[in-house]
């Protein structure tokens, strides 16, 4: 039931940004948002109230505080917070607009229910060292290559390559093989750029391969667990 509500909420947030739809059904959107926030608030309060049944959060005050600080509870809170902030500061439109971003966090509420999202989180957690490593390799390579390209191209194309941060954008577009209309034109720039492409595409693909092997490992582990459980129940017999 909450699952359906979350999906509907995310759909509503997305559709609201379509001007014509929003103007036609403004009241409906507002009504739906109010009702869902009310339900989410009750859900949050009930979760907070009942969490001391879990032995991990048994202490009536400290346990509840610890529970409130878990990522899932923080998401629950972030989802309902914007509406109450709007009630508290009704005139501050800038704050209101920026808080709307938080509404998309409703999508994250799904992670409580979805097995596949949980798997993704597990894989990322299991490979976090390796992922951090590959990301630092990427950043290292990106900074190095965009500095070299900046020095080679800045004079020929001061508009396109005005400074190193702008050249980093070139590096990202190139090495993710997106390839925007944004490229070196000097002979030396093309030579070094070609080398960067050959090496960089492989570097940028590292997280993909790490995640892939992580997924394979995780799924294999799950299958093994399932098989072991099935075997155990067979051996016990009726």
């Amino acid at each position, binding site marked *: 039931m909450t699952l359906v509500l979350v999906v509907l909420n995310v759909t509503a947030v997305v559709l609201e940004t379509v001007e014509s739809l929003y103007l036609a059904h403004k009241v409906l959107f507002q009504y739906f948002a109010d009702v869902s926030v009310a339900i989410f608030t009750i859900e949050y309060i009930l979760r907070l109230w009942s969490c001391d049944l879990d032995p991990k959060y048994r202490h009536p005050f400290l346990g509840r505080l610890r529970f409130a600080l878990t990522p899932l509870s923080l998401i629950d809170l972030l989802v309902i917070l914007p509406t109450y902030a709007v009630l508290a500061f009704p005139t501050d439109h800038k704050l209101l607009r920026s808080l709307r971003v938080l509404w998309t966090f409703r999508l994250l509420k799904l992670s409580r229910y979805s097995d596949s999202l949980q798997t993704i989180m597990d894989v990322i957690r299991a490979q976090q*060292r*390796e992922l*951090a*490593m*590959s990301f*630092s*390799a990427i950043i*290292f390579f990106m*900074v*190095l290559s965009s*500095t*070299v390209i*900046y*020095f080679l191209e*800045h004079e020929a194309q001061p508009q396109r390559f*005005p*400074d*190193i*941060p702008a050249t*980093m954008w070139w590096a990202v577009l*190139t090495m993710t*093989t*997106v*390839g*925007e*209309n*944004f*490229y070196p034109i000097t*002979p030396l720039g*093309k030579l070094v*750029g*070609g080398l960067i*492409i*050959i090496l960089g*595409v*492989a*570097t940028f*693909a*590292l997280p*993909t*391969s*790490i995640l*892939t*092997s992580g997924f394979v490992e995780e799924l294999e582990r799950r299958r093994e667990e399932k098989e072991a459980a099935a075997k155990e129940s067979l051996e016990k017999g009726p």
Partner: protein
Amino acid sequence: MKQDLKTRIYGVLEPGDEDSKYFDPFIMGLIVLNVAAVVLETVQSIYSAYAPLFYAFDVFSVAVFTVEYILRVWSCTVNPRFKDPVRGRLQFLVTPLALVDIIAVLPFYLPIFFLDLRFMRAMRLFRLFRVLKLARYSEALQTFVDVLRLKKEEILLMFFAIMILLVVSSSLMYEAENAAQPEAFSSIPVAMWWGIVTLATVGYGDVYPITLWGKLIGSIVVILGIGLFALPTGVLASGFAEVLAKRKEDRKMQKLRCPHCGRYIGDLASSAGPCDERPEEK
């Protein structure tokens, strides 16, 4: 007493020791800030607002790095590999890491002797080499180096295959397109730019074939070449998986205890000597 001071300084400078607990993060932070400064300095608006700050920071970091370099050269004789006061120090000076250290500070001192401004600007580029100093400290970069070393032959082979494909396809493309587009395909090296951009699937769209033959050759090259260009990615990925699996295994081994004497396997392997309570083999 002097020898003790030298040993202690050597311990502080070498990363990963208990002695260098505070020194390592300090130098790492300084290197990262230095690279950030090189990057941000090129943004005109930021540079003109904080030019003195950038200069002061550069002077400060060069001072720290110079002192670090001198102390390293002075104390390297503690390491048995560089024991000889003169020959050992010379040997130390030409190790890759020591060379990186000197290249990182040299651009600051060179303009004092050469007053050519353009030359100075190019030398600023070398300040980025300070990031290579990080290799000494970062496990991630070390992993990268390990992977490259492990897969050296495969990567070289693939590089070779890519180069052959690149040269062949660019030559064909040059023949097919030069008449129609003398500007874009003016020579084979220029056509190779098309080759790299196309085969890596970047596709900037600045040069592309327009003749029938060019399009035909281009299509065949792309179909064959994309697979070939993806190979280094796969090789690097498997290399990473191998190195990381080995590291995981090592970490697991370090937690294992010897069943006979109860000491950690990792300790036994390094310094504590073999387990002497091994039971008689039957």
